[in-house]
Structure formats: structure tokens, C-alpha cells
């Protein structure tokens, strides 16, 4: 898979006797160029990724979006890592199949629909847009996410939305341990059961859980479920056409660990 050679421009492509693929930037495919194999029809395009390398797929996606294509269908992603990352334009991408780790990370704008499963760290650091996953997701789903909606219809692994700073994560199934670990802002809506340590060390934001809770993490407390919460959940579930449990419990930060303005005794001496 990684042994595809490219006759692209650049000094490294010149020497036919070149054996290694050493690159000072540490890139596995330093000479990759967009393969230009997508079939474009008006504003839409279809890209078969079966014989392309990871970098070629991402370069081709970027080429299509820059050329004004707004609707891309990606076929045969074959569970590869780091697909559809760093896309900063509004567009629709449909990925038929499963992706590996770091899928759709660092995106700002796209609406992405994945018909399969994703591995660890999907939609990491998403700024805005929508990512919908039809099957399961691995751990660290939506890590450090800042905005947009991330919807997983199946189950997710551990530490969902670790360090999340905005946006909404919706999980149709169960979630593993330490869900919402260090959550700073934003919402998580988990329809099924959650593992131990829910919302451990969360700073702010809210976690809604429809199923059973193994245990709460440090400084995570149950809060009153209001009409506004009901309305928000209802609206989100209507948008994504999800079945919702009859009731949710809401969890927020207990603010026992909020010591931002408090100086340590030794520091106080220095300041005063």
C-alpha cells in the first residue's frame, strides 16, 4: 500500500537510483501529489480510494474542494487512518465504509457522513461542521473538540470528548469509562449506559445520560434537568433522526475543584 511511487515534481523524483524514502519533514510520502482520479459531475464528485495512499486521498479531497466541488462520495476507505483531516471549507462528504484512527480531525466546516465505523480519536479538534458515524467509534471520540456536532449511532469507547471545549457529542449506544474527562465546555448526550468515572474533573459543560451510570468521576454532580435541556435534546434528535430514551439525567461540574483565583499559601506570601 505504502510502496506506491510517484513521478511528481521535485528533486527527489529525479534520481531513478534513489532507494530510501527519507524526508527531512518525516513524511512517509514526501512526493505525493493529488492523483486526480475522482469523477467529477458538476458540483459533485466520486472518489474511489481503493488503490490510493492516505496522503493521496487527502490531497485529492483538498483538490476537489478547492476546485469548487461541494459534494464528495469516498468509496473503499478500507479503515485507513487520518482520512478527511484538516478540511476547512463547507462541503458534504459521504464516506462509504469504515475509517481507522484520527478520522476527520482538525476540520472546520464540512458535513461528513461515515457509513461504517471509526477508530480512536475521531473528529479530534473539530472546530465546526457535522460528523455522523453510523456504526461504532473507538476511544477518545471528539477529543478536544471545539464546535459542531459529532453523532455516533453505535457505541463509543473510553474517554469520549476528553478535553472537549465546545460543540455537541451525541452517542446512540453505550460509552466507556471516563466519558467527559476534563470536559471544559459543550455538551454530551449519551443514550445508553456509561462506564466508571463519568465527567471526571470536568470544568464546565453538561453531560446527559439516558442509561445506567457505573460511577461518577471526581467533582461531577447531578443537576436539575430543565425544560431548556429537554428542548435542546429534542431539537438535536429531530435533526439527526435518532430514537431517544424516555428520560435523561443531567450531570455538571460540582465546582469543588474551581481554585483558579486561590493562591497556594506560599504564593500568597510572595504576592502580599
Amino acid at each position, binding site marked *: 500500500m505504502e510502496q506506491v511511487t510517484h513521478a511528481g515534481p521535485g528533486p527527489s523524483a529525479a534520481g531513478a537510483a534513489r532507494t530510501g524514502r527519507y524526508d527531512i519533514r518525516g513524511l512517509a510520502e514526501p512526493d505525493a501529489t493529488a492523483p486526480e482520479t475522482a469523477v467529477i459531475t458538476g458540483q459533485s464528485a466520486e472518489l474511489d480510494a481503493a488503490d490510493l495512499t492516505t496522503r493521496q486521498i487527502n490531497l485529492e479531497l483538498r483538490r476537489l474542494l478547492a476546485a469548487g466541488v461541494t459534494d464528495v462520495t469516498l468509496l473503499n476507505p478500507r*479503515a485507513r487512518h487520518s482520512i478527511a483531516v484538516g478540511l476547512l471549507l463547507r462541503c458534504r462528504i459521504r464516506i462509504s465504509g469504515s475509517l481507522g484512527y484520527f478520522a476527520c480531525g482538525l476540520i472546520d466546516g464540512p458535513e461528513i457522513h461515515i457509513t461504517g465505523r471509526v477508530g480512536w480519536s475521531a473528529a479530534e479538534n473539530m472546530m465546526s461542521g457535522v460528523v455522523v458515524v453510523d456504526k461504532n467509534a473507538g476511544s477518545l471520540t471528539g477529543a478536544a473538540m471545539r464546535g459542531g456536532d459529532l453523532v455516533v449511532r453505535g457505541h463509543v469507547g473510553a474517554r469520549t470528548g476528553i478535553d472537549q471545549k465546545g460543540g455537541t457529542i451525541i452517542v446512540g449506544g453505550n460509552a466507556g469509562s471516563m466519558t467527559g474527562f476534563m470536559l471544559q465546555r459543550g455538551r454530551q448526550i449519551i443514550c445508553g449506559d456509561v462506564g466508571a468515572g463519568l465527567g471526571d474533573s470536568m470544568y464546565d459543560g453538561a453531560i446527559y445520560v439516558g442509561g445506567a451510570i457505573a460511577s461518577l468521576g471526581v467533582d461531577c454532580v447531578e443537576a436539575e434537568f430543565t425544560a431548556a435541556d429537554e428542548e435542546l435534546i429534542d431539537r438535536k434528535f429531530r435533526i439527526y433522526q435518532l430514537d431517544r430514551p424516555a428520560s435523561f439525567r443531567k450531570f455538571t461540574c460540582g465546582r469543588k475543584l474551581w481554585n483558579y483565583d486561590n493562591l497556594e499559601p506560599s504564593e500568597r506570601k510572595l504576592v502580599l
Partner: protein
Amino acid sequence: MCGIAGIIYKRGTGPIGRDMARMLQAMKHRGPDSTGYALYGEPGEELVMRFKLADPVDTRDFSFSERLARSVREVESRLAKIGATIDRIDGESEYAYRAMFRYDGELKPLADYVEDVPGAEVLSLGHSLEIVKDLGDAATVSEQYRLDGFAGTHAIGHVRMATESDVDIAGAHPYWAYPFSDIAVVHNGQLTNYHQWRRRLERLGHRFQSECDSEIIAVYLAQAMADGASLETAMKQSLADLDGVFTYLVVTGTALGMAKDEMAAKPLVLYQGEDIVALASEEGAIRAVVDREIDTYDPYEGEVMVWSR
């Protein structure tokens, strides 16, 4: 980082050597230093012993091959002396061998006696287990040891990125649960109470060939099973007894098991199909043997699962 993989055929035998090589090669980026296979063929009356008499990183002096030949003869005579009826001893690589023999006694004295030969290490011993490990990626090792034609029922494998010990065969997984027949383990993670467990197991008379924490998991489980626990019970107990972050796979003559620690910090993707169960650190490895869209999921923290044939 390291990558682990396991596969078990629900019915009959299959090209287990070829399938495991494909799975491991798909995870080469997780560990290119060494690759290891624990393969289960059809169990026979005879015992199969895989052993090595030198390491690929050893210095090749003038008497290297002469010394190897002498060591093989020594192993052969020691096997005969301890009461084994040798069927055959084949050279599998320059320094690794495969012996088949009949033997009814305790395995430990036999394995100890063989390892007493300078440079010798028994990689595996059992009626169906065969461990093959060497430096290089999965394809290199598979080609070197001609694993393409290996038919069997289940297997585990490991690609290693050495972080805490040398790049050599002693540091490569899988580990045989010396001296328990037909048990092996691969592991991704770190055990933080390794030294405690190593001392405890050493006091029970076990020997450890490597400085690798994964080796104790194999011996720990085998010892628990020798004390009467089932594989599943032993694995559940290991979650409480072993500290650190780990995901490990264990194989016996008839079963394949997985366990994940309570932090779920090391990945594992599981596919349960009609004909096979396959597990790997990445879905890409499973897709190397099941090349279509499949339903997979990550087992949760503290989970123990066992598939038997």
C-alpha cells in the same frame, strides 16, 4: 507502541500462517523491530519444540557455524538422555530449530536441560503450539520461516517497537508460558508491578528468559490454570493482580482470550464473524484478512473474553 493480533477459526483449520502474516504486515508501522507468531497446528501425539541456539545480532566469528552444529548435537543428545524419542530436528533458520519427539515426563526438566546448552532458548513447547519470532517485519519473518504454508486453528502475533529493552529475539513476543505446554501471550502496554510478580513467580521456581514484562503474564496465567483455575477465571483475576496499562491476548491449545485493563488505554478492535473471530490493535489488520466492510467494536475496560474451539 507495538501491535497485537489474534485469530481463531470457528470450524476446521485454515491458512493461519498466511493470515497472521497479513494481519501483522498491515500493522508494520506500529512496530518494525521484530515480529513474532504463536501458531497452533493440528495437535499430534508428539511434542513440538521450537528453540534457538544464537541470536541474529550475535557476532559471527570464524567458529560460529561450527559452534551451532555442536550445540544442535548437544541438544539432540540431551533430549535422548532425558528420555525423549526424537523423530526429527529441522533447521528453520541459521540459528532456529524445530524438534519433534515423543516424551511423557515433566516438561520443565526437559526445557531446563535444553536451555543449559550455551546460547539455547526454548521458544515454545507443546503438542500444537509453535512460536516463531525474529527481527524484521511480518513478511520478512514469514518468508524466512516459510509460514505461508502453515495450516492451523488459531494464532496470535505481535509487531514490536522496542522501547525498554534490546532489539533481539529474547525481547520479541509472543512469550511461551515456560514450562507449561501450549500456552502463549502477546501484550501491548506496560506492567508497573512487574518486579513483584517476577519475584513471586521466581520463588515458585519459574525462570524468565527476558527482562520483558509481558513474559510474566504468560507464566502468571499458566500457573493459575495449573492451580485449577479456568482460563477465564485466571484472566479476570489478572485484571486485579496486574497493575499498569495493558491489553493482552492469550492462547491455549483450544482457546483464544483477550483482556483489557481498567483504564482501556491500549486499543483493540474485535470482529466476530461466522467463520472467524479476529482481534487486532487496528481495524486495518482485520481488513487484511476480511476484505469487506464489517461490523467491529472496541471491547470496554476491564473486559475479558474467551473463544473456545
